[in-house]
């Protein structure tokens, strides 16, 4: 395989999606923590 630069859009897409997934995970996680502190969500919300 020749060692030359490539600019495949899908690699950029992967990077961009990983970043937005970071923010989504942060938002979801913090919402859970805040709602748990407020007593809105409880242990019983998850079955089993």
């Amino acid at each position, binding site marked *: *395989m020749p*060692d*030359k630069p490539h600019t495949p859009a*899908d690699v950029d897409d*992967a990077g961009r999606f990983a970043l937005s997934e*970071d923010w989504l*995970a942060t938002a979801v996680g913090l919402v859970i*923590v805040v709602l748990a502190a407020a007593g809105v969500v409880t242990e019983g919300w998850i079955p089993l």
Partner: protein
Amino acid sequence: MSTENTRSTNTPADDRSLEDSVVGDGRGLWTLAFLAGLVAVVVGGAVARYLAVHVPEWTAEGSLAEIGAAVEYPVYAIAVGLALNGVLAAAGVRDRLAPGFRTEFFIKTGLVVLGATVVFSVIVRAAGPAILQGLLLISGVFGFTWWLAGRLGLDERLRALLASAVSICGVSAAIAAAGAVRARREQLAYTASLVIIFALPSIFVLPWLADLLGLSPAVTGAWLGGNIDTTAAVTAAGSIAGEEPLQIASIVKLTQNALIGIVAVGLTAWFAFKVDRTAGEKPRAIELWHRFPKFVLGFLAASVLATVFAEQASAARLEDFDATIKVFRDTFLTLAFVSIGLEFKVTSLREAGWKPVGVFAAATVFNILLALALASVLFAGFTLD
């Protein structure tokens, strides 16, 4: 680069399935395949949680009581993921459902929630040794992997991806490095496959070895967090090792995650000035922020929120809060571990040839030994109290 360093015999269709199954990139999001894949993960998670709760009860009276009580939920989650993987592959639908196997999202959400179980003062106290260990480990392992891959004549971009993945944080680091060095997509997919294939046994072997070596909980956590590549696998191994190792392993791993921006900017500069010699493409300082894993901020914020809450809440409210947080944390981590099992693909090893596998294996052994030495020195005597 010789063809043995990537795959030479698979078809374009194989490429697509490999990429889609290993590197989640948002393509096909919210399609029927994505939703079906997500359902598979959730069903697998429910089965794993059911087994984790009920197997100890079923085995309590018999000769398997000790084993039943000792096996932690990550083991069930990964086993169920692997079993589902086999069933879906046999049915010929596994690769089509792969967009729903969102290991990265589940692990990051689980880690943000996990932040609420860690007292902020512990993060502050652990930050110094964690940053020092991260810097030494990343420098040492990246340098060793880069050197060895160079000696074996691997492509410059594959060298960068392998070195980043094994020294920093697995798939996330490989994605960041791929963007920095403009790697080929198949190189990214292949590196991600190697990360998963090597991480899987380490989840079970390293906690057992830590116990065998008589390591303290803090040293165990620092060792696991320092040497296992992918964050999900670190969390799985930490969960198996215990609550204290899990907290330290998370702090150490997130510290390494946070250093990814520096490596990505360094790689951008190296390839722009030394490899590709594209003078117009200078790395920008803003890249440090672009590459910074934002969920680390979520982890810190959750710890601060929980620490403030703990100072004001009654004992009963605090107990309810802790129980709720741990259930949600374990649920997201379970979904991540099921996804790891679903993503496992042994054929990737055959597709690539022995050289990158050999480099990755040698780098992994080097990483294990260096991390053990550093953790033993830097976290000696560290406690959560």
